């Protein structure tokens, strides 16, 4: 059986071309139409959050509000936001005692086993840091998780494979697999709310204003003044993820 070299090359060329075209077409079909959000232009915003440790009282309101607003599964290991309590003994700063019972959704039990007046005790609210250079986005094999043009890291649950690589890649433990959908889940910064001019559920529910949604692209946003006048840090700065969760009064022992 003789195959003409020219015919072979032309045929394989067509196949290669058609496979590429089919992939592009399929991508287009899958993408669908973006949900209409009138009066909202993604490129006009760059979202961030301020978390003021000096104001957090560990009540867990934010955790409860998030669970209700976003229908977060009430199972162990499923938290879009949570609060940690640090107990630091000044004589032994390397070994802080930390707890976060049920993500602090019911607050914290009283400390009875050690003298609290000898300790530094504070609460650290946590959520997705909406990093500008997210390791979770980098590792997703099909781009199901992405950074939106307004600086929010989101997951397309219709595409997510559930490979869990993003969960491994997040240095802050912000991701989990939703046991109902078997896809990766995390804080969306209440994207459905902020694109309608509202704040996030956790910020709204916080009784002390320890959480503040901020828009870095808005010149009138108080965040600019806040960042200028306060000692602010991000979690694990050595990870260089471009984290946009800015903590005021963050103790160096916090991980």
């Amino acid at each position, binding site marked *: 059986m003789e195959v003409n070299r020219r015919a072979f090359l032309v045929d394989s060329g067509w196949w290669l071309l058609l496979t590429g075209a089919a992939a592009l077409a399929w991508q287009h079909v899958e993408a669908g139409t973006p949900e209409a959000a009138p009066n909202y232009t993604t490129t006009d915003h760059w979202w961030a959050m301020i978390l003021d440790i000096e104001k957090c009282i560990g009540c867990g309101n934010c955790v409860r509000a998030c669970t209700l607003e976003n229908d977060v599964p009430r199972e162990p290991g499923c938290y879009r936001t949570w609060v940690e309590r640090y107990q630091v003994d000044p004589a032994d700063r390397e070994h802080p005692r930390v707890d976060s019972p049920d993500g602090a959704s019911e607050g914290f039990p009283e400390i009875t086993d050690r003298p609290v007046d000898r300790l530094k005790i504070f609460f650290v609210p*946590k959520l997705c840091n909406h990093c500008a250079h997210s390791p979770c986005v980098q590792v997703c094999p099909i781009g199901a998780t992405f950074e939106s043009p307004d600086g929010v890291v989101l997951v397309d649950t219709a595409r997510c494979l559930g490979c869990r690589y993003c969960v491994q890649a997040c240095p802050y433990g912000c991701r989990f697999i939703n046991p109902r959908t078997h896809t990766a889940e995390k804080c969306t910064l209440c994207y459905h709310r902020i694109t309608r001019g509202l704040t996030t559920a956790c910020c709204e529910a916080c009784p002390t204003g320890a959480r503040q949604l901020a828009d870095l692209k808005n010149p009138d946003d108080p965040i600019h003044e806040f960042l200028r006048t306060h000692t602010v840090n991000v979690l694990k700065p050595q990870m260089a993820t471009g984290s946009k969760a800015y903590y005021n009064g963050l103790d160096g022992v916090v991980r």
Partner: protein
Amino acid sequence: MPGVDGFIYPNEIELQWSVLIVLYPFITGLVAGAFILASLERVFNVEAVRPTYRLALLTALAFLLVAPLPLQMHLGHPERSFQMYLTPHRASAMAMFGFVYLWYLMVVLLLEIWFDYRRDLVLAWRASTGLKRRLYGVLALGSDNISPASLRLDDRLGRIVTIVGIPSAFLLHGYVGFIFGSVKANPWWSTPLMPIVFLFSAIVSGIALVMLLYVASCWLRRVPVDMICLDTIARYLFYAFLIDFSLEMLDLLHRIYEADESFRALDFMVKTRLFTSQIVLQIVVGTLVPLGLLALVQVRRMSARARRAIYVVAGVLTLVGIFAMRWNVVIGGQLFSKSFLGYTTYKMEFATREGLLPAILVMILPFVILVALVRLLPPWPDRAEVHEG
């Protein structure tokens, strides 16, 4: 919280990657190692290992066919995995798996096996009847030209494929190492040594597996073991193992000496939860003992029978050690919290999708495929003649 010591982030309760993901680097490692052993004969003309050439290729194929299975079983949405081919995310190390895999399967292994077996396939096609005749006809891709000129061409092409195949085998497993080594969030994984360590441990495990399979096949076929072949393979196993062990010890030494912020947590983990699998199984039973046994054969004169027994014991222990190494990387890397303040436990289930039972079945499957392949494409020339008659 049961199974948890200290503080872990609330979302870290569940381990993300189970025993199935332990099998993934273990299996791809066996593939890469078996192929590299086969290439020794073909590219570097190590005539002594010729009896294992075809067996090594078939072993690589049998395991490569199974390699994506544990990944597929682990996915939350296996039906979407094809998306990796259509819309791969170029920044993702994992996205390349499909392409590296297909390249290795289609361009390297299948081609090399086909060129090597083409003459046998045509002869079997001519000699058989009925369904079998049709099968061999399809496998020969309808071409029955076995003129000396075309066989010479086969040989030349096969050689080129092998030369392309060696860097491909390095790529396949080095790449698997990169999937882990590039996760900066995890200090247990994040080291540029990871791909190299994975590669050398792959070579070690593949050589050990083919060595054991060769001895087993001789025993089953009641033919004498070619001791020159076995001695040569064992020597290569010894050398590869030395490099592998040195690299792993370098990694360990570096961690201990540098003692960065993660060290205390990792050190505690190795001394407690990973003690059995890391210190006992991986380092002592799975590395030092087989290395010692293989070294003993190099320096002492021994009977063929004794050497054979030592090789078998060393081979089995090597596989145990490399499996333990994969376990310690994958599972060990998830036992400590990224807060470095606590530890969790891996609770392996039995008859669930990611439990022990499916893992055992996944490990048995390549051997079943190998038996089928050996029946179809006998790797030993004498048997092939008998088969055709």
